[in-house]
């Protein structure tokens, strides 16, 4: 659905900001009436290890904004963002650390 990212490295700490396009619909209210569709697992991997692991529920709002930091990062390397939702849809994207 779309992942936008800003990832910067200072010394060896990377600060990552993600804007994930997803309706995060609970299926119970407003324009989201119908079947629930929300991300239920989001991971970010760096060099084979998981640096961010998140299990959102439908309580998280539409187009979630996620910000986190991790140590041991190097400029020019890449991180892999992957999410899956309750309907089985998913997305994977590589982001370069600047």
């Amino acid at each position, binding site marked *: 659905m*779309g992942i*936008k990212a*800003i990832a910067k490295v200072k010394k060896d700490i990377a600060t990552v*900001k993600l*804007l994930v*396009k997803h309706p995060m619909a609970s299926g119970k209210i407003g324009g989201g009436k119908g079947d629930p569709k929300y991300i239920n697992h989001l991971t970010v991997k760096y060099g084979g290890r998981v640096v961010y692991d998140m299990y959102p529920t439908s309580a998280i*709002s*539409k*187009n979630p*904004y996620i910000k986190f930091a991790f140590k041991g990062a190097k400029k020019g390397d890449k991180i892999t963002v992957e999410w899956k939702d309750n309907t089985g849809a998913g997305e994977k994207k590589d982001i370069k650390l600047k």
Partner: protein
Amino acid sequence: MLKKMIKIAAISMISGTILFGASFNAQAEKDRVAFVNYFLKKFENPVANKDKYFPYVPLEELKKDYIYPLKFQDFQDGPLSWYKPSKEQFAEINDFPPYEIPLDDGEALFNKPFANGKTYASCFPNPAIKQNYPYYDTKRDEIVTIGMAVNECRVKNGEKPLKYGKGDLAKVVAYLAYKSRGKKIDIKIPNENAAKAYEAGKKLFYKQRGYLAISCNECHVKSSGKRLRAESLSPALGATTQMPVYRIKWGGLGTLQRRLAGCVKDTGSEKPKMQSKPLKELAYFLTYMSNGMKLFGPDTRK
């Protein structure tokens, strides 16, 4: 002899309109200059002008939380322009502005061809046009807003018009606004009927109405720079530069008319319908007041 008379009559008519043509916005210009000067003076030095403009705000708060002096272009930030805590909160949010996603959708919608193969670009070959809207169409004798222009483009190409105020229409307007960033607002008053529409909008702005008996002027001119419970009141100057606005409350984009209609309803009046004459006149007046200010849309607000 007759030819000469016609010639003289024609010349005098033309010179008459040239002489008086420029004066349709004379009153509006007077209003606008007074409007701008009021805000520039008010926000020049709240600490020194406390007694005149901010008699009930504690001096420590003025010194700690207020940003001053505000220059003309600073008013584009609305409630964030003068209040430090709000500005700091939004600096974090605007690091990764939430309007980016609907703006990308707007760009995709703008470039997607209609059923007949053409795109919006056929109506808007140069998308940097938002600074001219809303404009008074002298032939149709009505105010044309940018929402109307988008829908008229759709209908001209055989598509159904979109619903005003939000959704896909707001996304397309957001793309046009994004392309018009940096352009100075340039609303014109070309004839007498346009001047009448301006005056009608001005009257609405200053009129007390609804069960709160409140006017736009009360909160956004007289009380701009003050707080209403937890909100910092925005000045009316520069109010239209950030449209269509991504409101965190809406979780999406909204046009100027959506915002105005909502505020009219919140102050106790009946919610005006989109593209209704009074709402367009208010938008026309309000945008004219910010003539000369550079656009910065879309932007994020509460």
